[in-house]
């Protein structure tokens, strides 16, 4: 048995990177598929959230994916505009990463809706006074803008014209950078404007959300470029652009994020009377203490160490992987604890039902569906790149 396993591992090791990733992907996809089927059949009955904690894991996934989208776009396009090697040739890859993770996020929140098939109403009968609607429109505009940029850059495809930046490409990209910085900040404002939850009602949330978005977006970009290298990753060094550029951004992002978080937490704990002290104690020493100490702090420390030392490209990629996964805790630790403190004393006991509880644990179905969402994103990325490659080849053939 053990020998068999050993030989399996040996065989796995011999495979190419792409094949290895494909096998890993199946590990996400197969359980995810069962999850999505259960979600489709049973509705939201098997989800763990309720009416007092109405938002759960899926929303965290959504905000994380949207953050990655905005961050990746901002980092990638600024790199492109500044002419960072590696990013300037791969503008379209940046666009794909951004668009794909945005769509992944939208899938997550779509599955979270109570009535998913009415989602179109957000666009049909809008209320721009609502942050959610404002954000939805921004996503729409952003996706359209990505498409437009894509089209403009395709027109200039071909080896000679890679660096042709005339016309409206650069101005539109600048607008895109503005939007891609604005909407992760708005995700923070999304929570910041909710007074009902004292923990959320703070002006620092937009800043924290933006920093988290840029950090995880840059990590995602680093991973994507690692993936682009394919099997030649072992021969390339960590000093080759764009890795140092992305590495610096990630490191700075981690530092700024924790500075902001330190400022928020220390103020609340220092303050003799504070509305949010209870929430922060819940985060640090509550039932999910490990999310804060192990995933959030531990993950960031490990990632920071790997990226800071940057001995080899593999380590760099490992650091980025740790950051991009562990930074979902920045969303979870704002989302769930903010809802877990009742504003009215005694509401928890007034009427007892599992849905009317202030403690939230994600159920198996929620985890499975989250896995599906992630695998969906990965697959979408892979296929859109394939599609793009064939499309460009065809297009070039016709033009030349």
């Amino acid at each position, binding site marked *: 048995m053990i020998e068999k396993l050993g030989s399996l591992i040996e065989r796995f090791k011999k495979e190419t990177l792409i094949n290895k990733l494909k096998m890993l992907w199946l590990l996400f996809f197969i359980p995810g598929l069962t999850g999505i089927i259960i979600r489709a059949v049973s509705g939201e009955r098997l989800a763990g959230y309720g009416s007092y904690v109405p938002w759960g894991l899926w929303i965290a996934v959504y905000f994380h994916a949207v953050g990655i989208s905005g961050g990746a776009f901002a980092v990638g396009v600024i790199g492109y505009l500044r002419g960072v090697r590696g990013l300037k040739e791969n503008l379209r890859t940046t666009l794909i990463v951004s668009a794909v993770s945005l769509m992944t996020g939208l899938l997550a929140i779509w599955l979270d809706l109570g009535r998913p098939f009415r989602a179109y109403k957000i666009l049909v009968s809008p209320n721009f006074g609502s942050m959610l609607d404002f954000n939805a429109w921004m996503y729409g505009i952003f996706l359209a803008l990505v498409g437009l940029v894509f089209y403009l850059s395709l027109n200039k495809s071909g080896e000679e014209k890679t660096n042709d930046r005339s016309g409206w490409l650069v101005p539109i990209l600048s607008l895109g950078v503005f939007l891609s910085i604005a909407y992760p900040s708005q995700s923070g404002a999304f929570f910041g404007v909710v007074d009902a939850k004292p923990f959320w009602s703070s002006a620092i949330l937009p800043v924290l959300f933006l920093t988290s978005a840029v950090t995880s977006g840059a990590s995602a970009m680093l991973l994507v470029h690692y993936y682009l290298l394919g099997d030649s990753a072992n021969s390339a060094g960590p000093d080759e652009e764009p890795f140092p550029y992305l590495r610096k951004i990630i490191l700075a992002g981690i530092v700024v994020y924790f500075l902001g978080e330190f400022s928020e937490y220390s103020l609340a704990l220092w*303050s*003799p*009377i*504070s*509305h949010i002290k209870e929430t922060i104690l819940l985060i640090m020493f509550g039932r999910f203490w490990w999310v804060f100490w192990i995933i959030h702090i531990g993950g960031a420390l490990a990632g920071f160490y790997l990226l800071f030392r940057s001995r080899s490209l593999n380590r760099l990629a490992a650091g980025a992987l740790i950051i991009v996964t562990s930074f979902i805790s920045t969303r979870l630790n704002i989302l769930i604890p903010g809802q877990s403190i009742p504003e009215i004393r005694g509401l928890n006991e007034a009427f007892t039902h599992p849905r009317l509880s202030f403690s939230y644990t994600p159920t198996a179905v929620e985890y499975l569906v989250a896995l599906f969402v992630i695998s969906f994103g990965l697959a979408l990325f892979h296929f859109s790149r394939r599609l793009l490659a064939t499309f460009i080849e065809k297009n070039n053939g016709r033009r030349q």
Partner: protein
Amino acid sequence: MTKKKTKTTPTQRDGDTSAKDAGKNISVLDRKDFISKLFKTGAGTLATTIVGNGMLKSVSSLYAQSKDNRAVKRKFRYGMVIDTRRCVGCRSCVLACKAENKTPSGVSYTVVFEEILENRPNDKPVFMTKPCFHCEHPPCTDVCPVSATFKRERDGIVVVDYERCIGCRYCMTACPYSARWFDFGENYPAIEQNTPWAQVPSPEYKQFRKRKNKQSPVGNVRKCTFCLHLQDEEGKYNKEEGRWPACAKTCTGKAIHFGDLNDPNSEVTVLLRERQYMRLKEELGTSPNCYYLI
């Protein structure tokens, strides 16, 4: 030193109390005494005091002593219960407090404010007299950079050490009830014109300070003390003997009730048991010791 002079005027009373205090180790007095000694030994000037060797010694013992003071076990939880239905807004509590503590212009430990109720403009407004609430979790004491203000362990009264306070006014910003007042050194004309009234010292903290320009409490933050100078050596008040907070004693409508909230038979506890009450800004978690009956 100046303190010595102020001590001599109300000879008998003052001598008694300070002797008692020194023996029994209570109240802020001891620290004040220490500092006044310290000033004396410090050859009068500030610079030498700081450098002086004796200074450091006395400071350390002073600090230890202040810690001892805090370690005294909690005996009382003094609090007020104010009946808004009985309050007619006559403001005699404000005046009584002024007369008792000799507070200058611009300092008023208790104020009465009125709120005209929505929907009934012709009715009696709700009057609320507002002393310091002596919160269970006072936000003002934590922010003091020099620990000059603290909650006394034995009876829960929040006090200010006039000798230690540097007058930075941080505690005033931290108090959500505006219960602290800064003494700007302004005086009523009676003091300015040096009438006999000016000779009467303020009995606050049993320190019997006479009002002098630029000496404490001028330049200090001042606040309601529940008239703790009227306590006996065990920290008890006595209503019959008139040793009772001035505002509660004077209230014409009998709206202010004062007593020990730890005693299950005291006036205040009985009222709280039988009537409906509320406290101001409870959402801040300060847990005030003043209750309003409604």
